[in-house]
């Protein structure tokens, strides 16, 4: 009994020491490419890519463990930018280019449960317990995190309509 405890403790200590030494002397400086990719990404840490945030996703991209099409909110534009930066070719036709949209809370159905405001990565939902919640349009990134948490399905996504300020001419089509 005592033998077992002693040997395991020693083993633990030795291995811990080894790890500490390795962490100090074999440390790899953070890849600057990771930071660059991260700055391209939406930065809402929404987790739709399956990684816990934009930084881990950028790391996975650099390591080649994730496709450049991983980010649903970034859409086709981001996939293109990532592909250019990483020097890979990618077929973007398959990437759904979701039109930019924002969450809207149906006030008739909101019960004020505060669940959605806890998951919002940008604190774009305001509200309090048993008060109707509302979305701050400018802060919402359309990441859809709040959709699943709502017990009454009162959050819906609305496409952002072009305004006089955001509208611009389409590219003139080549005459056949």
């Amino acid at each position, binding site marked *: 009994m005592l033998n077992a405890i002693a040997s395991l403790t020693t083993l633990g200590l030795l291995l811990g020491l080894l790890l500490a030494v390795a962490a100090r002397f074999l440390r790899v400086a953070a890849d600057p490419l990771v930071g660059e990719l991260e700055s391209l990404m939406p930065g809402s840490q929404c987790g739709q890519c399956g990684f816990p945030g934009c930084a881990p996703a950028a790391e996975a991209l650099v390591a080649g463990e994730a496709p450049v099409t991983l980010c649903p909110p970034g859409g086709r534009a981001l996939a293109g930018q990532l592909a250019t930066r990483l020097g890979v070719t990618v077929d973007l036709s398959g990437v759904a280019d979701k039109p930019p949209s924002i969450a809207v809370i149906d006030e008739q159905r909101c019960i004020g449960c505060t669940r959605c405001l806890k998951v919002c990565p940008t604190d774009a939902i305001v509200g309090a317990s048993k008060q109707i919640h509302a979305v701050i349009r400018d802060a919402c990134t359309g990441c859809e995190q709040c959709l699943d948490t709502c017990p009454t399905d009162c959050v819906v996504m609305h496409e952002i309509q072009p305004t006089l300020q955001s509208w611009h001419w389409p*590219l003139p089509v080549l005459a056949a």
Partner: protein
Amino acid sequence: MKLFRIRGGVHPAGRKEATRDLPIETMPLPGRLYLPVQQHIGAPAAPAVKVGERVLRGQLLAHSQGAVSAPIHAPTSATVADIADLPAPHPSGLAVRTVVLAPDGLDEAVDRETVADPLSLSPGEIATLVGAAGIVGMGGATFPAAVKLNLPRRQPIHTLVINGAECEPFLTCDERLMRERGDAVIAGIRLMARALGVQRTLVAIEDNKPEARAMMVAAAAGVDDFRVLGVPTRYPMGSEKHLVQTLTGLETPARELTADLGVVVHNVATAHAVYRALYHGEPCISRVVTVSGGATQRPANLEVRLGTRVTDLLNHCGGFRETPARLLAGGPMMGQMLPHQRVPIVKGSSGILALTGAETAGRREMPCIRCGSCVEACPCGLLPLAMAAHGRAGDLEGAARHGLMDCVSCGACAYTCPSHIPLVQIFHHARGALAARQRVAHKAEETRHLSQRREARLAREQAHKAAEAAARKAAREAANKARAAAREAAS
């Protein structure tokens, strides 16, 4: 005075014969007026009236918001019939917040104070009054005039240039203003020169308007530091940067403004509006509009209350001779296509053109033969063919590297292109797409800030909770200890 040459430019047919000798005609009040709250560059105005309220001519309908903005006034006495999102006079046909007025026909003016001698006002006071009158660049740029009059507080301004070039084909509204109301225009110019505190004022009129120039010379006689000059007839002579270069020889550096050279440019119609505002206390509520184009029954120069719809204007001019192929607000070179006739005249509408199929000549696009015609025509010294190639391929940065942001969208390149390539249209698209991309990047930056703030907030809350728990635990232990001590003392 020595004039300087600008590079490039084209000579489109003037087509001003239809309206240049027609006096300005006052258009009767229509049944409804539609006043968008955004008739200027900058922040939209905020409505200051309620539906059902009665307003008088010159009364404030919407006040300006922010530093670059302009208020909107009631063009006549009326009842506010509605405040709704209605189509804007814009190629997209998208809606804009619009105050709808039902005129009562009395045309009663609101009481207002007029200054006995506006020329005795201080520069700051003139600028403030111009801003309160909602005056914007009436040549079509619609930049709030007061902001430009306040420039001397930020940078030295030595010259005021008054733009009477009117280089766009068809348009004659500025020419008629100068010929019929030369004295008023000069009075307005004097006020602006005083507001700016400039050493000299140059009024530039294209050589194809000798009558207007003669009138202005006569009106300006006896005013010191005023020069009325004829400039060569060449499109785009009326472009601010090119007019300044013609007159002073100073070329505006890339991405800068003429104000950086110490020169401010205002349009003659703006000068007229300044005169109306300061001598008659009348804010910007009407303007002269040229109605022309081969498809109009009776071309005319009309003095129109703002908010009158294009359809009312065209009906007043006898409707169409034939179905127009294109309806334009402004001139044919830089004007905006109108989606339909149910849009209002706004502060920047200098003309309404109904063009026939022959005048628009929808031509088949052919491949670029790299002839360089567009390069020769470009007044900014850019390479339109290279910019277009990049723009069309979606390489917006490439287009920007070739000077997309220095293009003034004059359209001389597309006009001259023998292959009929829609060059300037490609630039419109590329610039819009570039702006959209910048908005997305800005939003991403903001999102990152927000999510960092949220992380910080969560960390703060956790720390707070931990501290509270620790405090509670400490309190509990202290109480326990005290209780134990008490028990010991008791036993």
